[in-house]
């Protein structure tokens, strides 16, 4: 599903963010990216939906070399990749329902399809009752559920999560991880960057460790350290 071939990313011609990374991730895998801040985790994720392009190497998503994609096709790549962030990136002036619906409107889905899909996904993330609330009326965990709903409503092949539990307390984090696990079990490939030792050690999934821009460990059913 995802393949990196000797990928190197250099920012502004000097700062190497990722060096010579080669990774193969199969469909339906759940992968943790771990490592200290600045070790290249976010860059790794940003390369996958072509927010960034590598200086060297090739990246394949769903069998396609995404470096070859012309700019106008990049949005179609992103429709297959959901993204979740530490800071949720919800629109503060839209309700929970509207925030999720916005993701479908933006890719031109018909109104009827939106009316059907949004309540379904809100049910899945356990927020059916909060559809009419504004984001600032929700707890952090609930806001993250909205953002996961928005990322998953289009049923992408891949879900990228950049420290999704970074702003949440441990109990709430467990709930979010259960949700991501559930999404993973529908066949969606999940790649999650995290600092959360407890989560990684409990879930025992594949762990890719980055240190100073290099992949230093790639372990099936791994632990944080």
């Amino acid at each position: 599903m995802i393949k990196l071939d000797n990928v190197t990313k250099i920012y502004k011609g000097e700062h190497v963010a990722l060096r010579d990374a080669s990774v193969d991730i199969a469909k339906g895998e759940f992968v943790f990216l771990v490592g200290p801040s600045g070790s290249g985790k976010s860059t790794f994720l940003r390369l996958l939906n072509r927010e960034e392009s590598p200086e060297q190497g090739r990246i394949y998503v769903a069998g396609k070399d995404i470096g070859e994609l012309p700019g106008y096709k990049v949005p179609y790549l992103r429709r297959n990749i959901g993204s979740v962030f530490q800071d949720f990136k919800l629109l503060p002036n839209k309700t929970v329902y509207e925030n999720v619906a916005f993701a479908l409107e933006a890719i031109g889905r018909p109104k009827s399809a939106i009316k059907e899909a949004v309540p379904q996904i809100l049910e899945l993330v356990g927020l059916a009752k909060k559809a009419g609330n504004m984001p600032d009326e929700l707890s952090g965990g609930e806001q993250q559920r909205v953002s996961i709903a928005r990322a998953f409503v289009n049923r992408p092949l891949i879900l990228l999560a950049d420290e999704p539990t970074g702003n949440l307390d441990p109990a709430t984090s467990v709930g979010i991880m259960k949700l991501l696990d559930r999404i993973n079990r529908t066949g969606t490939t999940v790649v999650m960057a995290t600092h959360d030792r407890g989560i990684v050690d409990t879930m025992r999934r594949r762990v890719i460790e980055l240190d100073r821009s290099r992949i230093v460990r790639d372990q099936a059913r791994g632990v944080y350290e």
Partner: protein
Amino acid sequence: MAVRLDYVLKETGSNLRRNATLTIAAVLTVAVSLSLVAASFLIGKGINNSFLGLRSDVQLFIYMKPEATAEQIKSIKKDLDESPQVRKVDFYGKDKTFAEFKRLFADQPDLVSTIKPDELPQSFRVLPKSTDADVVAAVGKQFKSKAGVLRVEYAAEYARQVQRSLRTLNTWVLIVGGILIAASVLLIFNTIRTAVFARRREIEVMRLVGASNWFIRLPFMVEGLVHGLSGALLAALGAWGFDALWKKNFVNQVAFELLNQIRWSSGDLWLAIVVIFFVGALTGAVGSGIAVSRFLKI
């Protein structure tokens, strides 16, 4: 690239409201600059019409009688060609004269339809070698009494001077209009930049979920177009008012002996309005296009 129209209109509308003050400033600047362009265009047309026979290379008109024979015309032509005083001669035959007449009175079709080409006097338009008024008058005198000649007229020097000053004035109006158009482009550019900035969170989310580039761009481009076209609409009203005022105050007033010759047809007015809308749309498209490409990372 299926972007829903109602979406674009909704987003554009909310951008315009959000930036009401900047929008008004942009629209007014466009309106003023395009009004100046329109006025300059109309006056320019008027100058060309009123002085069609007074082009700077013509100093002397020899009008032939309508009943003048081909022989007589030929003989005058021969004399002019052979005259050492003459630099250039243009013969205006029936068709050429009628064509010019139609152009001058295009807004008076009744008049045009009552005149037949045969009834208009044919003429020679002569450029003597010397511009000295006395020499020109001497050349004219030679032809005044020849067979078939109706009368000889001289391009008055003061008329030419008025024409020159009007042209200069008109050039300045056009330059100021041009500068204001540049200002309009900058204002629209800034307004769109502000709109993009105000919506940066939405844009970020749209990019993340894979909205197509046109879906993101279009509302902003349409916003710029609305600025340009609204300004053009106001300027069209301005041009129409200018046209009415000019006709009321100058054209039908005997007192303004030279200004009342500067007239344009309703066709010219329509052409000016078309030009206004074209330039307005272009201004909006250029201003918003630059802003979108510079500030909308897709």
